[in-house]
C-alpha cells in the first residue's frame, strides 16, 4: 500500500511528503492560503480604526478620541467653587473623588443649549490632566477608519484652530475631531 497525501497515491520510496511538489493540488492550497492571507488583510484594515465619542454643542457635531474619554456621565449636581473663570462651572463627585467641570461650549464659542436629559459630562484624561467637559448630548461612539479622517478645513473659526485635528462625516453631518490634550493645555495656559 502506498502513502496518500491530498488524494495522490505515492509509491513506496517516492519523495518525502513534505518535499515541495509542484502540482495542481498544491496550487489550490496556495490559492487558499493566499485567500486566507487576503481575508486577514481585509480584517487588518479595520483594526487600526480609532474610536471616537461624537457629541453636539449648539447642534454642531464634535468628537474626542475614545482613548481620551474615561467615561460618560449623566449630568450630576455641579458644585460651585468661587474664584474660577465662568467657563469652569464647578466640581462634581465622581465616586468620592473630585472632578472639575469645564463648559466645553464656552471654550469652543458654541453656546450650550438648556440642560436636557441628554446633557452629559465627558470625563476626559490627557497628559496627566483630567477634567469633566459639559456637552449638550452624546450622539454616538464609533470607529472611524484613518482614511476617513480628513484634514481640518482652512476656514475654521479662530477659536477652533489648533484644537481641531481633522473632520469626518457621520450621519450626513460634518464632525470636527478635537484633541483633549491640546484643549487642556490651552485652558491651563489661559489661551482659552
Amino acid at each position, binding site marked *: 500500500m502506498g502513502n496518500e497525501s491530498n488524494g495522490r497515491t505515492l509509491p513506496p520510496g517516492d519523495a518525502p511528503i513534505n518535499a515541495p511538489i509542484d502540482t495542481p493540488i498544491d496550487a489550490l492550497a496556495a490559492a487558499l492560503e493566499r485567500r486566507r492571507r487576503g481575508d486577514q488583510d481585509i480584517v487588518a484594515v479595520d483594526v487600526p480604526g480609532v474610536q471616537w465619542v461624537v457629541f453636539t454643542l449648539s447642534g454642531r457635531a464634535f468628537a474626542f478620541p475614545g482613548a481620551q474619554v474615561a467615561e460618560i456621565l449623566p449630568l450630576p449636581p455641579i458644585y*460651585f467653587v468661587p474664584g474660577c473663570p465662568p467657563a469652569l462651572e464647578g466640581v462634581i463627585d465622581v465616586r468620592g*473623588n473630585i472632578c472639575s467641570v469645564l463648559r466645553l461650549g464656552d471654550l469652543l464659542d458654541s453656546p450650550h443649549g438648556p440642560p436636557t436629559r441628554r446633557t452629559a459630562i465627558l470625563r476626559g484624561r490627557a497628559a496627566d490632566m*483630567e477634567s469633566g467637559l459639559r456637552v449638550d448630548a452624546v450622539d454616538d461612539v464609533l470607529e472611524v477608519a484613518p482614511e476617513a479622517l480628513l484634514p481640518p478645513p482652512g476656514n475654521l473659526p479662530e477659536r477652533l484652530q489648533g484644537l481641531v485635528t481633522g473632520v469626518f462625516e457621520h450621519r450626513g453631518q460634518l464632525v470636527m475631531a478635537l484633541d483633549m490634550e491640546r484643549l487642556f493645555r490651552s485652558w491651563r495656559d489661559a489661551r482659552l
Partner: protein
Amino acid sequence: MTDINLVVFRWNALRLAVQASQVLALESTLDPDAPSIGDLLELPIGEGLPGVVTRAGPARLLRLAQPAGMLRVRVQEPVVQVRLPATAIHPLPPLLAARLRLPGIRALAWQQGEEPGALIVILDVGDLACKEPPAA
C-alpha cells in the same frame, strides 16, 4: 488614616472651612469694621451654588491665627466643628488650580450625608488678606 478637624461656616450658599487649629475664638459680638469672608475672597453678593437660594444665617466673628498676627472675619452661621477623614479631603483639580483667581483656597472636601451643598471649600488662613498688626 488621620482625621482633620475643621471649623465649617457659611457664606450665602457656600460652605467654607478653615483648620480648627487656626481658629482662636468664635464671638457673637459683631464688629462692623471686621471684613466679611466674602470681602476677603472678593465674592459677589449672593455667590454660591447656581440656582440654589439660601437665607443668610446670622453673622458671627471668627478670630483666626495668622503667622503675622490675628485676623478677625465675619462669617455666617451655622458655624460647626467637624472631623473629616483625610480621604474625604482632596487637592484642587489641576485645571481648576491653574486658573483659580483666589489665593486663599487650599482644598476641597465632601461631607458625607450632607446634600445638597456637601462640598466644603477649605481655606488657607495664611493666604487671606487684610491682616491686623501683631498685638503689642
